[in-house]
């Protein structure tokens, strides 16, 4: 939570206000995500513990679901740059986000290609582990092989350590929002302080 508050404080305006109706969607998603936890809590614990932990989980889930709903990755990356974070750090986050679907699609292609070469993923554990090897190795090897080309590409496109990057259309940041963020961070710290003491 603290880390999240810190990130929000240091990156102005990454979130856009989700509005009223999206708010309902967020609430519903959060409750649905939290629901299984309640079921398992009831199985594993007594009622008091269930309520205590359940509320904690629900709060946590709700705040993250809200964050994800309100957050566009592109805006976060630009907001990080605008707030003076290093472009390399913004790159780590942004590049992972965009590499995941690329590698997932590649994993899917590899599964299909190996099946078209006769690989069957059925059978005992040993057969399935062998199949796993034929799926995972090409994915990892081809991805690692590309690291070099990615490095060349970053260099040619000017993302080198120590640059002063121009933020592209950074989200607007008002003094009120800034003050609200600091206030929230202080509230978090205060709550933490009371817990620890």
């Amino acid at each position, binding site marked *: 939570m603290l880390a999240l508050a810190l990130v929000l404080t240091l990156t102005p305006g990454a979130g856009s206000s989700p509005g009223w109706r999206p708010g309902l969607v967020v609430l519903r998603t959060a409750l649905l995500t939290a629901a299984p936890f309640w079921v398992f809590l009831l199985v594993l614990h007594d009622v008091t513990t269930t309520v205590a932990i359940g509320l904690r989980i629900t709060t946590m889930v709700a705040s993250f679901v809200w964050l994800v709903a309100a957050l*566009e*990755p*592109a805006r976060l*990356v630009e907001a990080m740059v605008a707030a003076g974070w290093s*472009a390399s750090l*913004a*790159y780590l986050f*942004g*590049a*992972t*986000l*965009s*590499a995941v*679907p*690329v590698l997932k699609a590649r994993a899917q292609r590899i599964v299909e290609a190996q099946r078209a070469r006769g690989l069957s993923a059925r059978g005992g554990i040993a057969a399935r582990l062998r199949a796993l090897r034929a799926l995972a190795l090409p994915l990892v090897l081809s991805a690692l092989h*590309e690291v*070099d*080309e*990615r*490095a*060349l*590409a*970053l*260099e*040619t*496109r*000017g*993302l*080198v350590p120590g*640059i*002063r*990057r*121009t*933020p*592209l259309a950074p989200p607007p940041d008002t003094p009120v929002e800034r003050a609200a963020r600091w206030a929230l961070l202080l509230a978090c710290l205060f709550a933490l302080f009371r817990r620890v003491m």
Partner: protein
Amino acid sequence: MRSLTLEGVSFWYPATDSPALRNVSLHVARGEIVALVGALGAGASTLLLVAADLAPRVTGGRLTGSAARHDRSGIVLPTPWTQASGMAFSVWDEVAFGPANLGWPTHEIARQVDRAIEQLELAPLASRDPVTLSGGELQRVIIAAILAMDPGLVLLDEPAAELDSDGARTLWRLIRRLAKDGKAVLLATSTLDALPEVADRVVWLEDGAIRAVGPPDLLADVAACDAGLGTSVATVWRTSGLPGPYPLTVAHALRRWR
């Protein structure tokens, strides 16, 4: 005005004994289009990496001789999907990635990006997520992204590999226009038939060294035809046993025939 000067350049990749380039001397002037041709592994890609100041600075390895660049360079690598920034979630932002890293003011970024998008005919794709593009579309986006950085020296490694014939035609036209605007262009390609209309000079690389340099007529040369580097028309002429000099293109052949 020279844009690139290589004098006696030899280059070794890390952990290799034989050089990828041997004693290469070459200059490229502003407004000029120079094409590198040669068999697989002849050194064209390496030469482009040296010209871009990536080898040995990023690749590692060892360089002897001297390489002087008089303009900022931009290189289009042969695998567009590894050259995507990973930080852009629309084509417009992808093209703007390089200019933003150069720290330009916002209005200058917008001007260069819009121009590059128009040059590569990407306007209909401007708001798409780069992840959803086809290979050919992505290749055009990366070319636009490099051009938006306004390099004086444009380096292209197999820029037409992923393009269909429409896309390739547009690309060759664009390259001519870049040269007219005063840019120096150095490109490696195995699409030999396009070169007579595109290149001002052709450099034939063999085993890391320059075997011959000349106007595109080089591609109708007996030796080039025999090395598999003649244009299709020249190669047919050579195979037919008709006397030289061989025509370079269909138009030349027609003139010769009449």
